[in-house]
Structures are given as structure tokens and as C-alpha cells.
């Protein structure tokens, strides 16, 4: 907004205490809430995919009820992941230059390739191999446009002989194995974008990619817990308590690792007290007090850690209904905590001047491309997409991975008729 025009209506308070380089004294930080959303959404993708891999690669059978749901969640969020980035670019129509002429020393240049690889070579392929036999089945059973859609999605491969299905499974398994490092790459590189900025002591940190990966896993698993519980509630279906307990267990262990690494980062920062430490200290006590200490550390980490920890120790003594409630609210808190973490990294890193002599403030607008409303819409978009995907590809009857639906070979069908 034009500052001169704004000043006619009300006086704009200076955004700084102390000194900031004149180019930093803009009405808003350069990277705003859209850039907060971007790592948040990619983190959810990576985490949800890791959740699905637990079934495929690590053979955690208890999680089978959420296998496909996790994959679809990862897919819905991955489709929406580049939107905040695109909307934030000054010249979005030039975005393809990142793919056509990537400058290979830039971590951001890797984005297009990592994204394309993850979407095209990992997630879409894995989904296709996993769903192909069901597509064939549904194409035969479903009339109308949905049947046509399933037929198109078979890509003309309608061989559902045991040999072909076994090949699908084997390829799907191989893709899952490739998918785990790819998920780490997808989110690790987002962490590296921030970690590589040596000009900013809040960001420039060797642990940043690992912190991002760990928090991605935590937030992705928490999202799967929430989506699963809400879906079962919406469909009036019973929650598989064994599955929920297993998810809570993995959530707890991932959170322990995440909290451990983030704690190590802070211990290192406080102990080494390098350049900019004083300004960081005052930020944690003032500008980021609520989002860092209360949102991220207390509500997003300590409380779920304690509650889920108790759940691990005394699982059998706690009634099912309470376990469900504890899981739901822990997952919700973790999701909010990781969002607060992204906020603290992205916005926190721009709340002090690179002269290390001034602190800025930031108040989000409601309207506008970088306001509350738009970010809310962008965050709701993957959920809308997920609902559509669930309606189309996740029928109410449980479909277990590797388990063939009551499907007949074409020859057999003819014989029966």
C-alpha cells in the first residue's frame, strides 16, 4: 500500500526500533506469510509420504488403514505446494526460467527439478501402480463420467492377472524406497534455502535442513492422524484403535527426535553466542515471545511430547475414548506448533535488520495477496482437493494395500455369466 496515501488516513508507526538499513525499511518484510505457507505445505507432503512408506517399505501392517489416505494427502498438498511461491514472485510469468535456465549454485534453482521429480517420478507413479488394478475394477463397475475417468486413469493397461498385479506391487515398493530419500530431499532443500543464507544469523545454520526434515515428518504424521480421525467421524466409521496407537507412537518418536535436534540447535546458539546473539535474545523475549516460546516450544512441542509420552507408557490403562481424544488434540497442537515454527523461521529471520542494530515489527493485513484471507484460502485448497480425491479414490469400504478387491478375471466373468 502506498505509504503516502496511508499517512493521509492514519499515521503509520515506524516499523523499527533501533537502526535498519534504509532498504529494509519497507512496509512489509520481503518474504511474508506466503513463504511461511510454502515450507509448511511441503513439510506436510514429505511427512505424509513418510507415513505411507512406513507401510510399504517398513511393513508396519497396523498402519494399512491410512496407507492410501496418506498418499492422497501427500498428493493433494503437493499439487498446491508451488502456489504460494508462484503468487509471491514479482514476475510469476517468468517462473519457467527456473527450469529452463537454472543457475545451479542456487538452492532455489533445484526447486523445479525436485518438485517435478517428486510429483511425476515418485508420487504419481506410486499412486498409479497402487491403484491400477482398482482403476480397472472400478472402470468395469462404475457407470457414467466416473467410470470413464477410471478408464482413462488405467492408461489402457487393464491386465489384472496375478503376474501383472505382482509387478505393480514390486514397482510400487521400489518407488516407495526411492520416495523416502526424495521426500527428505524435497524438504531438506527447503531448509537449505534458509540455512544457506550466511547474511542472516537466524537462518544461516547447518542444522536447518535436518530441523526442517524432522519437523516435516512430525507435521505430516500429525496431519494424517487428523485427516484419518475426521474422515472416520464423517463416514460414521469406527476408528481402528491399533492403527491410531501406532500413529501416536510414530508421532511421539518423531517428535522426540525433532525436539532433540531443535533443542541442540538452541543450546548451540546460546552457548556459542555468536554475532547477532543479543538481537536474537531480545527477539525471543519480545517480538517472537508468543509464537516461539508459547506456540512452538510449549504448546507445539512440550505439551504433546508429555501427553503422547504418557500415552506410550500407560497405553493399556487409558480408555480408548481418551486415547482418541489425546491423539486428536496432540496432533492439532503439533500442526499449530509446526506452523508457528515456520512463522518463526521465515518472519523471525526478517524481524531484525542485517545491521544487527534494529528490530522490526510486522502486522499482517486481512486482504491482499499476502494477507490473512489469501493465506487461509491457500491453506484450505489442499483440503478441498483432498476431499475430492477421497470421494473419487477412497471408497467407504476399507481397501487394504496389496489386498485385491473381489475382482474377477475377464475370462472368469464370462464363464460365470
Amino acid at each position: 500500500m502506498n505509504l503516502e496515501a496511508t499517512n493521509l488516513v492514519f499515521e503509520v508507526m515506524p516499523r523499527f526500533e533501533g537502526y535498519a538499513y534504509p532498504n529494509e525499511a519497507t512496509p512489509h518484510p520481503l518474504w511474508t506469510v506466503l513463504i511461511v505457507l510454502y515450507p509448511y505445505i511441503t513439510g506436510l507432503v514429505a511427512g505424509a509420504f513418510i507415513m505411507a512408506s512406513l507401510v510399504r517399505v517398513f511393513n508396519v501392517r497396523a498402519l494399512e488403514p491410512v496407507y492410501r489416505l496418506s498418499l492422497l494427502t501427500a498428493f493433494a498438498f503437493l499439487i498446491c505446494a508451488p502456489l504460494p511461491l508462484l503468487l509471491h514472485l514479482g514476475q510469476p510469468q517468468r517462473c519457467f526460467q527456473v527450469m529452463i535456465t537454472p543457475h545451479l549454485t542456487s538452492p532455489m534453482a533445484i526447486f523445479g527439478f525436485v518438485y517435478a521429480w517428486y510429483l511425476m517420478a515418485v508420487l504419481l507413479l506410486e499412486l498409479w501402480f497402487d491403484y491400477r488394478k482398482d482403476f480397472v475394477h472400478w472402470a468395469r463397475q462404475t457407470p457414467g463420467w466416473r467410470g470413464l475417468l477410471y478408464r482413462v486413469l488405467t492408461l489402457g493397461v487393464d491386465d489384472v492377472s496375478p503376474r501383472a498385479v505382482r509387478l505393480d506391487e514390486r514397482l510400487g515398493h521400489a518407488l516407495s524406497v526411492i520416495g523416502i530419500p526424495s521426500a527428505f530431499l524435497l524438504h531438506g532443500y527447503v531448509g537449505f534455502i534458509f540455512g544457506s543464507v550466511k547474511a542472516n544469523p537466524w537462518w544461516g545454520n547447518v542444522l536447518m535442513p535436518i530441523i526442517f526434515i524432522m519437523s516435516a515428518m512430525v507435521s505430516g504424521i500429525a496431519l494424517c492422524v487428523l485427516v484419518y480421525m475426521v474422515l472416520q467421524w464423517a463416514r460414521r466409521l469406527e476408528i481402528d484403535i491399533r492403527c491410531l496407537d501406532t500413529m501416536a507412537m510414530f508421532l511421539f518418536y518423531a517428535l522426540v527426535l525433532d525436539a532433540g535436534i531443535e533443542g541442540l540447535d538452541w543450546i548451540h546458539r546460546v552457548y556459542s553466542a555468536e554475532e547477532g546473539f543479543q538481537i536474537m535474545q531480545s527477539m525471543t523475549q519480545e517480538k517472537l515471545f508468543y509464537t516461539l516460546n508459547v506456540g512452538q516450544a510449549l504448546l507445539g512441542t512440550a505439551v504433546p511430547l508429555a501427553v503422547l509420552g504418557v500415552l506410550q507408557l500407560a497405553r493399556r490403562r487409558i480408555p480408548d475414548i481418551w486415547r482418541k481424544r489425546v491423539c486428536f488434540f496432540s496432533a492439532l497442537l503439533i500442526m499449530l506448533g509446526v506452523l508457528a515454527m515456520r512463522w518463526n523461521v521465515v518472519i523471525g529471520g526478517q524481524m531484525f535488520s542485517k545491521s544487527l542494530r534494529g528490530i522490526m515489527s510486522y502486522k499482517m493485513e486481512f486482504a491482499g495477496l499476502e494477507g490473512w484471507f489469501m493465506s487461509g484460502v491457500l491453506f484450505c485448497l489442499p483440503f478441498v482437493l483432498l476431499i475430492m480425491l477421497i470421494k473419487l479414490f477412497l471408497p467407504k469400504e476399507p481397501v487394504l494395500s496389496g489386498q485385491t478387491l473381489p475382482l474377477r478375471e475377464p475370462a472368469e466373468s464370462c464363464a460365470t455369466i
Partner: protein
Amino acid sequence: MKRKWNRRGLLGSIGAAVTGLLALPVGRAAKAAVQKVLVSTSAPRGYDPTKHKWQMAIDVNRCIGCGHCVEACKKENHVPEGPYYRTWIERYVIAKPETGTGKARGKTWVDSPSGGMRGFPELPIPEEDVLHTFFVPKLCNLCEHSACVQVCPVGATFDAPDGAVLIDPNYCIGCGFCIQACPYGCRFMNPLTKTAEKCTLCYHRITRGLKPACVEVCPTQTRVFGDLRNPTPDDPLEEFYRRNKVQVLKPHLGTEPRVLYAGIDKEVS
């Protein structure tokens, strides 16, 4: 495993090394040719960037904080109104230490209202309490290892062979990564073009044999500018290096700035 050398292997290695060496200038020429076609700069046709090495030096002891350089830069380069500066002046005011505190220096105040373009207000403390005060002109530091060039995802910002760090406004995607990566706060997002912008040493002027606008208008010759590849008989840069001990800003970051300062204090960041 220890490698066994024989005549054929040795000759092969030497041949590969020689071919590599011969290919190097060919590769460079090809790169320069491609850049000539693809990269748009404001240099006139016929300007050869490999025949120059531009350098800027700042003698802080001479600066009076008049702000003419900032104003000239804004006008010359059509820098938008508001908090957008290709160059600016900072004022440092260092107070005397309070007696009995055991400190060598007192509190430091830094300001740059409107980039110093309209001068500076009264001192924040009484004159008798001031230990030291001085003005520091700032601009793109023309780093040897520019963080901004390193992080640009499309190569829109680049090191020109003549020492200038330039941005191709027709290629910049406006992601802002370079602005975040610059440790000196020299870059900004132009609100009109929505692309990154910074000091180019007035590339459209220096490539036509003129001085940058800020150097041209400086009344005290604080800003010293020259061409290291084509020194003049009374070269101001040579004189500057002969007379001063020089420093760079934020040397610990390893960017190796090519803008050199004489007379700055430890408080300058």
C-alpha cells in the same frame, strides 16, 4: 590401490590436460559470446568488459554527509520514491563512556533518515558527550564472491568481467532471494518493475567513459573511482591506496567486497 604409470597412460593424461587447457579459453569465449547475445546491460555497443576492472573506494574521513550522492543516484537511476536506495549515507555517533563504567566507548547511535538524502537532524546527545562521529557512504560492495549472485535461481544477477555486479531486469523473476542473501542491505525490490535492483556503478555512464553519478557530484572527493586495468597518470585510486590503510565491511562473511573503506571504526557494520 596404487596406480601404475606406463608410457601410454602418462601420455594420455598429459594429452587430456593440454586439451583441457586449450578448451578453457574456447569455453570462456563461447560463454562470453552467449552472454553478449542473451544478457542485456546498459553498456553501449562495442564496449568490451574484459578490458576494464572498475573499483570504488571510500574515504570516510572526507564525507560531510551532505547527501548529494544519494540524491544524484536517485535521479540518475530513476530509483522510486520511498525506502529504496542504491546508495545511502549512515551517520555514526559514538558517545563518551560514562566515568567509572570501565568501558572504552559509550553507546552508539546509527541513523540514515531518507538515506541521508536530505541531511541529518541534530545529534541525539549533547556535543560535549560525543566521543566520535562520522558518516559512512554505502553502496553495493561489488563482492568477489557475491552471495547474491550465488543464490539467484535463474542467473539474472551476474558478475560482469569488469567487476560490476549487474542484474538483468528482463530476466529477474522477483523471488527476492538475492535481497535476503546480501549481507549489506544493498538490494531492494523495485515496487514498479517488481524485480530486484541495486547499484550498478552507473553502468550506463562508466561504460561511456563517465564517472558514476555519486562520484561526479561528491564535493569532497569521498568516493574514489577508477579502472584498475587502465590507470591514469594521476590515478585517484593509486593515490588512495598509497595514503590509506583500508578495510572492507563484514570481512568474516568471506564475500571479499571490492569496495574498500578508509577510516571506518569497529562499530560500522
